[in-house]
């Protein structure tokens, strides 16, 4: 990922590079490719958001407009990332959209209990998938107004 770690609009946290590739391709199509940053596990995501470790240059106040979060990831999983974000006053208002393959009721309930803003099941079909990603990008970056 060559994009800058500053002025990130969309933070994509996805461990599957193939899925990430599809998401990035679709976001590029609607010109959101430049303000996007991709991370492949939950630990990296937390470092990024809180400006720690590798991302110590970043400030926690420099919040992304939306976080697209996968649930099943190595080290720290998506629900843990979500809980940490929501537990901190500085980050608790960042819109988080869970994007996962899991349709399991328990995952949906736990995500909403932790205060997720949207829960999207990745469709298997490419058409539906690209449509979903494009709509998500449009809505959260261009339509939705979130607190600064």
């Amino acid at each position: 990922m060559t994009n800058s770690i500053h002025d990130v609009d969309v933070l994509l946290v996805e461990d599957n590079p193939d899925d990430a590739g599809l998401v990035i391709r679709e976001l590029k199509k609607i010109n959101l490719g430049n303000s996007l940053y991709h991370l492949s596990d939950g630990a990296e995501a937390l470092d990024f958001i809180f400006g720690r470790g590798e991302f110590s240059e970043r400030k926690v106040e420099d919040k992304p407009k939306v976080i697209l979060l996968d649930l099943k990831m190595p080290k720290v999983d998506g629900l843990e990332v979500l809980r940490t974000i929501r537990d901190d006053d500085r980050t608790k208002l960042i819109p988080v959209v869970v994007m996962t393959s899991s349709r399991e009721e328990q995952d949906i309930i736990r995500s909403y209990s932790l205060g997720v803003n949207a829960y999207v099941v990745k469709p298997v079909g490419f058409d539906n998938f690209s449509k979903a990603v494009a709509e998500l990008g449009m809505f959260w970056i261009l339509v939705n107004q979130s607190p600064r």
Partner: protein
Amino acid sequence: MLLKDTPIRHKLMRAILLTSSAVLLITCSFYFAYEFFTFRNTSIRQLSILGEIIATNSTAAMAFDSREDANEILSALKAEPHIVAAILYDKEGNPFSNYPLSAKTTTVLPKSDFEERYSFEESYLVGFQPVIQGNKRLGTLYLKSDMGAMYERIRLYGIMAVIVTIISFLVAYFLSKNLQKSISKPILALAEISQAIAKRNDYSVRATKLGEDEIGLLTDAFNQMLEQIHTQNQEIQLFNKNLELKIKERTYELEIANKELEAFSYSVSHDLRAPLRSIDGYSRILIEDYGDKIDDEGKRTLQIIVKNALKMGYLIDDLLAFSRLGKQNVTKILLDMNAIAQRVTEEMVAQNYKTSEVTIEPLLSTKGDSSMLRQVMTNLISNALKYSTKKEKPVITIGSYHENDYDIFYVKDNGAGFDMKYYDKLFGVFQRLHSPSEFEGTGVGLALVHRIITKHGGKVWAEGKVNEGATFYFSLPVF
């Protein structure tokens, strides 16, 4: 109080007292009678001896006609206080001498009293004794004896008999009171124990054996019975405990198996989808970005890859829906089956089956889980629509009726039908009676219907004939 209802102690005491009283009474009576007669006889004998002695002594006085001598002889009777009167008569029966002297009499002795005779007259014993010298009759002696002594003695005997009877009765009472215990005590103990067992259901207690008699045998048999019941109870309890343990074990195993299955379906849902998405997505990218460099056959091949990836996606979705159903609870509410059937039909007919004619007869309202029964109706109606597409005029009828506490619904079509030979496979998971080239499908729909209806306590069945259509029924219990 009836004798059969009195306590055994009282029965025993009553028997002993009655027996001893009867014996005592009979003994006393016989003794009393014996005493009475013995005394009478003795009195008579004594008086007759006295009479003979005095008669013999007075022969001289009579022979010589000496009144003085006769008076003297009679006065000797003073020594016998119970002799109240004595008279000597001469041979004609005229009084000759009398005792006591003061009681003079002039009455002539009647001839009938000349014979020797001793008898009781009123409360006196009187005797007539002839005075004879050789074979010459000299006169008659009359003796009168007071029987007061005898009656006194008899009264004394009577009092003694009553006292003895009372004392004997008391002794018998106290003896029987103590002696009956040896019989009644073990019986009472046995009765008490059996009552305690009946009340507390405690079969571990034992009756104490007090002897080797019949009651002892009874106690032994009773204890043996208790022992058997106790052992059997323990066996049953042990058996129950084992059963409970086994059920717990099985439940635990089942829970683990269920959890494993959940974990499995979770990873299926998550992990199997991701590669499918990539197969589909990147094939599409290939077509989109490099379409101009691939010929038609290459594009067709890519389309087949995409189609199959999608199909596998549906298979996974259906399979997950089926396995998820196992965990879901049935929440029964009253459902308007007409509304459900109408909405499901409208959606599907509008999408793909515009030529089909669907008739919905007025349906019964029934109790069931809203989303589950919607799924059942969707699957059955979509099957009916799908399998009748090849008919010129597809006709589908949805109806219901009530039978034996069940609401029965059916969906009937005039489509491809099925061979009853393969009925067994109809409701199995991934079982299909048609090839994908004939009719699309994953083979989960009817299995799902079967599972939902079974969870509702109902039944699913079907009738069909090849190329003439099929009718699918399901029943739901009314309660």
